[in-house]
């Protein structure tokens, strides 16, 4: 223990305040209580995953199997997302907004490639109100023509104008990697023809297919099991258990290839390889993401991961690695954005970095760092409510198990330099998915980068 006199006056004051005193009282050997993981249950035919940390707020979300992957016509997912919390047969959109404002709640709707999420964050005592609201939104929204014309269309057009080069490149990489299904753009760009397909009646049809009991899961973070089983049963009984309309679902297949899209003013390159899916135990991919990194861990420094070094050699570019995990496929990506010459340089350097891993040029120390980073990423994902919530819900609707953190951690520990080398080699030998968006005169072809497409 540090002696009292060694601490500055500010620190002493802080120690005296109650919170810090509690931490100080806990001995160094005592383990912090582990954060609960999501417990899957089934309440009246609805899949529910809940965890309760006893805090004063609750996050309740409906995760529906209605992401862009499952849309029957282009743009329906974004249409359905914008129609969330609009007029229902019971109350108007304005009333929904004002009432949740009065209760201090937050409503949001967003989507990933696989899931559409309707989320409410609120005080613990208001669970009945928001459970009813979410059930009402999915079963009784009216999908009126005037709301579509006056509100939904405008918001979609605005968001389309905000889709940046990095997002377009990522969509293009998915498109060449998976063609249909997962290849659908996450947000259709302004030049994507969705006009003929996106209207309120098609959205209503899609909603009837998407919002059925087998297709949704309710994820609650900070609500007790007892309260959930009490309120979900009565409110969700109107949600249909089957639908005439079927969602678009075919198994994903990896193709690979190259896409080049001209765009003024912004440049991005995405280099993709087949990655790890949600259920797969491929700890190498997670460690590879940690090793390549790219996101800085400390302030005022680009960091020490391989892609940070790449970015340092091309100062106008930003590069980072990520694994996009879906229920039956994954895409391991290196995403680069910045000014065109720097993006080109960074892309070349990134592939070189990956090749150096495949040739075994990674120090043991770096592997240890990468494993630590991968462990942090995993634990952070399971703990933070945003990403963890979507992850838990997506797992439930695809029939998988919630994240088995302990097992995954153990698997990460087993990754060695040799395994990483083999994994990187396998990636480079397979077909890559390369997408370049921006100034095509400068941006490189996959062939020039030394990748097979």
């Amino acid at each position, binding site marked *: 223990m540090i002696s009292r006199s060694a601490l500055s006056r500010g620190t002493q004051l802080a120690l005296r305040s109650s919170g810090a005193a509690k931490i100080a009282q806990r001995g160094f050997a005592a383990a912090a209580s582990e954060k609960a993981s999501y417990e899957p249950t089934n309440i009246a035919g609805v899949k529910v995953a809940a965890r309760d940390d006893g805090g004063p707020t609750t996050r309740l979300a409906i995760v529906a199997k209605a992401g862009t992957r499952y849309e029957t016509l282009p743009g329906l997912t974004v249409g359905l997302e914008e129609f969330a919390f609009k007029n229902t047969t019971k109350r*108007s959109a304005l009333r929904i907004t*004002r009432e949740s404002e009065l209760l201090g709640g937050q409503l949001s709707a967003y989507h990933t490639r696989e899931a559409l999420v309707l989320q409410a964050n609120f005080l613990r005592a208001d669970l009945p109100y928001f459970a009813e609201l979410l059930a009402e939104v999915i079963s009784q929204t009216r999908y009126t*023509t*005037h709301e579509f014309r006056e509100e939904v269309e405008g918001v979609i057009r605005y968001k389309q104008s905000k889709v940046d080069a990095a997002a377009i490149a990522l969509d293009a990489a998915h498109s060449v990697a998976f063609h249909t299904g997962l290849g659908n753009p996450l947000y259709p760009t302004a030049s994507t023809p969705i006009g003929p397909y996106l209207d309120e009646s098609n959205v209503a049809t899609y909603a009837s297919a998407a919002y059925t009991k087998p297709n949704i899961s309710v994820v609650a973070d900070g609500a007790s099991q007892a309260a959930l089983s009490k309120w979900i049963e009565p409110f969700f009984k109107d949600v249909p258990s089957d639908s005439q309309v079927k969602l678009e679902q075919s198994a994903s297949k990896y193709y690979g290839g190259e896409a080049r899209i001209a765009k003024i003013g912004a440049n991005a390159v995405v280099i993709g390889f087949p990655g790890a899916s949600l259920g797969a135990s491929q700890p190498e991919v997670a460690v590879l993401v940690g090793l390549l990194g790219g996101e800085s861990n400390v302030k005022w420094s680009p960091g020490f991961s391989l892609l940070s070094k790449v970015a340092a050699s091309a100062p106008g570019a930003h590069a980072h690695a990520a694994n996009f995990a879906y229920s039956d496929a994954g895409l391991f990506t290196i995403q680069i954005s910045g000014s065109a010459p720097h993006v080109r340089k960074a892309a070349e350097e990134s592939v070189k970095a990956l090749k150096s891993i495949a040739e075994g040029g990674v120090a043991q120390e770096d592997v240890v760092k990468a494993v630590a980073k991968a462990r942090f990423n995993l634990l952070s994902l399971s703990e933070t409510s945003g990403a963890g919530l979507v992850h838990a819900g997506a797992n439930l609707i695809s029939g998988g198990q919630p994240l088995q953190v302990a097992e995954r951690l153990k698997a990460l520990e087993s990754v060695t330099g040799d395994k990483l080398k083999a994994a990187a080699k396998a990636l480079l030998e397979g077909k890559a998915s390369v997408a370049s968006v921006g100034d095509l005169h400068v941006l490189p072809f996959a062939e020039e980068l030394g990748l097979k497409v």
Partner: protein
Amino acid sequence: MPAPSLAPFIRARPWLSKLVTPVANMYSNAAGYRQMGLRADDLISEENENVLTALKRLPAKESYDRIYRIRRATQLSLQHKLLPKAEWTKPEEDVPYLGPLLAQIEAEQKEVEQLDTLTVIKAH
């Protein structure tokens, strides 16, 4: 704000409704708009925010037909003529198409006003 109406009062009483309906039909025919091919809802004054919003919400076909009827009626009025009897608006065609939309918009307005002026009583 719509003018006060006796209609709901009368409609709620079948005997009174039976008594008044023939008179109402006579009145509608005598009003003369049917002879110019118009519907009752074509006569709602447009110079009003709510009506303008309701007109925007009309389906494309309804909106086109409405403009056609109004232009035809204007032309007839200019020429001091009536339509040939076969083209008069039949009572069964004279359905409210704008009224329901307008009622919905007025209800929305009323709700906005109520929510803007509510008093919050804290429950916890």
